[in-house]
Structure formats: structure tokens, C-alpha cells
């Protein structure tokens, strides 16, 4: 990607997961257990992502299941072996889930963003470090979760992809259809929004 500010050097890509193409080919060849491996490996991250967008476990689960079936159909019936081998499996699966989530959101747009009033923050203490007691940890996670729910959906999805799923900017660009340079700015703004949301609960980040 050309970048005028840096003089256009190509950014080094972190290696993609080495076996993702192999797994796609194994599914294509219908090797026993291959698709179960795919489910075991991706179900939880995809669910986290879908939940990040939809904020509803039931819908998220439905979306993930639908995505898995579509993936199986595409890999076995629609794509030939060369295409499976060249496939970036992770962004491809996430993109499928993303599209299904956005379809679902479109069909029931209203009640998704949680209103501010629903936050009772009386009993939650300030944000402490992760090395705390279980109780503190629980509260802190709950606090974060609520702060996340306050964010706009595109900020939430970027935080999930970048920090929970630890995707590279290149992979995120493939998943959401954007450029790495644009995403760097968006991810930073998303973090800032999350910081602001946490600040309302008395947790301060300079940034």
C-alpha cells in the first residue's frame, strides 16, 4: 500500500496463520473431522465477534451457525481446490459472519444500542489493574462490557477484531473492506471512545 507520508514503503505483513489454507483444502476434500476442526477453531472467536456487533447471544449463535453452514457449502461445492488453498480463511469467515450480522441488524435495527440510562454504576468501583481479586476482576470485566455496549457498532467490531481476535490490520482490512491506513485511525478512535465510556465510570485514561 502506497503511503505518501512514509514515502511509500511496503508494510511487512505478519505471517497469516500457517494452516488456514490447509484446513480449507481439507474441508474441500471432505477429510474426516476437517470441518469439526474448523468449527472448534473458529466458533468461539466468531461468536465473540457476532456478539460484539449484535449484543445478543441468541442472534449471535444463530448467525455463527448459519455462517458455518454457508462456509461448508462454499468450500465443498462452490470453490475448487486452488481457490480453497489460496483462501485467507479467517478474514473470509469473519466477513461471512459480519455480513450476516449486518443483515440481521438491518432487519431489527431499533433496540440494539443500549441507552445510557440502563447503566447503574453505583456499586462499581474504579477501574483497577488486572491483578486483582476474582471479585474485582469480575466487576472490572462487567464494567468493560458495559462500556463496550455504549460504543457505536463499528467501534465495537474493530475492538473485537483488533484486540480480542488480534488480527493484523491487513486481515481487518479484508474483513471489513477498508484500507490499513484508514483502519489505524478508526481503531485509535474506537479505543478513545472506549476510554471515554470508561471515564464516565470514573476510570481515567490519558491517551
Amino acid at each position, binding site marked *: 500500500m502506497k503511503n505518501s507520508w*512514509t514515502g511509500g514503503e511496503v508494510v511487512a505483513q505478519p505471517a497469516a496463520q500457517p494452516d488456514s489454507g490447509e484446513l480449507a483444502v481439507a474441508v474441500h476434500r*471432505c477429510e*474426516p473431522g476437517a470441518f469439526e476442526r474448523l468449527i472448534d477453531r473458529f466458533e468461539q472467536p466468531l461468536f465473540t465477534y457476532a456478539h460484539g456487533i449484535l449484543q445478543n447471544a441468541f442472534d449471535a449463535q444463530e448467525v455463527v451457525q448459519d455462517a*458455518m453452514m454457508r462456509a461448508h457449502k462454499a468450500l465443498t461445492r462452490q470453490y475448487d481446490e486452488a481457490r480453497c488453498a489460496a483462501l485467507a480463511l479467517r478474514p473470509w469467515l469473519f466477513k461471512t459472519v459480519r455480513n450476516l450480522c449486518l443483515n440481521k441488524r438491518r432487519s431489527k435495527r431499533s433496540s440494539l444500542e443500549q441507552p445510557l440510562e440502563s447503566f447503574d454504576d453505583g456499586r462499581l468501583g474504579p*477501574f483497577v489493574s488486572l491483578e486483582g481479586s476474582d471479585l474485582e476482576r469480575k466487576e472490572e470485566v462487567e464494567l468493560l462490557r458495559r462500556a463496550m455496549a455504549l460504543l457505536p457498532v463499528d467501534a465495537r467490531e474493530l475492538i473485537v477484531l483488533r*484486540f480480542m481476535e488480534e488480527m493484523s490490520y491487513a486481515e481487518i482490512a479484508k474483513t471489513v473492506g477498508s484500507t*490499513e491506513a484508514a483502519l489505524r485511525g478508526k481503531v485509535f478512535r474506537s479505543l478513545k471512545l472506549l476510554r471515554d465510556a470508561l471515564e464516565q465510570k470514573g476510570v481515567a*485514561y490519558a491517551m
Partner: protein
Amino acid sequence: MQCRNVLTRIDALRTRELAPIEKTAVEQHLRTCRSCDESQADVDDLVHAVKSLSLVPPVSCRDAVKENIADSFDRVGDTWVAFANGRIRMIAEADSIDDIRQPYAKKYGRVLEPATIPAALRRQVLAAVGGEGVESPKVDLDAANDLEHDVLQTLTRIPRGEVRTYAWVARQAGRPRAVRAVANVIARNAVPYVVPCHRVVPSSGGIGNYIFGSATKRALLEREGVDVDELDALAKEHVRYIGSRTTHIFCFPTCRDAKRIQEKNRIPFRDSDDALENGYRPCRHCQPVAA
């Protein structure tokens, strides 16, 4: 580099996704700018904290997905039989089930899991493979399109010990002009033996091709009581139909009625127009021409 440019790159710096020249510039800035340096630490903290939010689905979709993508298979005699919902979906001959998985997925979009085949299906397969014939095969045609459905249905109506032509099947399936397409469907029959695609031969004579080879087709037909040598002899004479001088009816040579015609009353016809002009009518059982 300005602070705002640095801030948006702190995260990429963390995962070494910056070009070397950018990396140097950002690092240089962080050494001199205190507020940006603090931001870096905050980003680290926040990122670390966010990781704890990952979720586990309340129920894995594994079983539900599997139910939607898996059919069963079992070994019956020398063949592999794939089945679902008490119906046969594919019969194949191969050394290993692994050779069948991919064609099966291509056709049905499903994977195969080992299971015990219902006794009724096992009996049908054994009877069909053993040459005994099957009256009303339990075959799953849900995945077939209209053409495939009509063609495969028509095939099941060809009686044991008789053969029909591809043109006949096309006509009976309601697509008299689509002989080539119909032949392709017959060639792709997923349930050979049980749906008797081996009982279809070219109009021009001979016995034609078969998934397991012409020799197998010949053996199958002979076992069912078809006189293949006689078919070859008739084909050499370009004889397609046999008429009876007493009833003035003409049939396919393998029709059960044609076999009953006494030698002295048999009259060969090269085409149906010839027979019709001579005042013969088509047999109602084997229907050599459209009724």
C-alpha cells in the same frame, strides 16, 4: 511527526506492523513527547483489559451444524451405500469411503459418517446388486432437479430382463427432444443397480457405456435374462423392432410380449414408420413409439 499521527500508529507499532521508516519516526517521537509516551502505556493497559471480554457461546453449534451437513454410510456387499432419512442417496464402488466423500459433497453438499444401514435398505441394495431387481426402490430424489427426477423415475419403470433406448427414456420422461441431456442424467445416476441405468441402450444398437464399464453392463443384463448376443445380431441387421404377424403389434426386441411371438410369426422392422405403414400398431407395454 505530529502527535496525532503518532497516536494512530501506537497500536500498529505494538504489533510491529509499521514500515521501518514509520517505526523509526514514531519511536523517535515517543522518546521526546511525554504525553504520547503515556498514551502508549494506556493503550497497552486498555488492550490488555479488553482481552478478558471474549465470550464462549452458551451452546456449541457443532451438533446442530453436523446434523445439517452429515449423512450416513455403510458397507453393503462390495459397495458403499450412502443414505439419509431411510432412503438411499448414493451407491458407489471404491476401495475406501474416502474416495467417495468428495464426489458426495459435490453432489449433496454433505459429509458422510459411518452408521448401520436399515435392514430394508440393505435388502434392496443386495437384491439390486445381486441382479434380482427391486420393485419400488427407496431412493432419495429430493436433491434432484426436475429433469433428473423425471428421468430416474422413468428408469425404475424399465422391467427386469428388458432394455430401452435413451430416446425412449427421453420421451417417457416428457422431454423427447432432449435425448443427450437425458443420457447425461442417466450417466450421472448416483444409485446404480437400484435405479437400473444399465437397462438403457443406444437406439443404434449395441449396449453402450456404463459407469462400471461395458463388460459389467453386459454381464448385468445377461444375468437379468437379456439375450445380449441376439441384440448384437439384430443391431447388425439394423433391426430395432419385432412385429407379430398374428396380432399386428410391434415391440422392442426385449419386450416380454415380443419374446412370446413364435418364430414363424416374427417380422423384423428397421424403423417404426415402416411398421406403422404396414398396419402394425405399437405395443402398449413397451411403447416403442409415442402413444
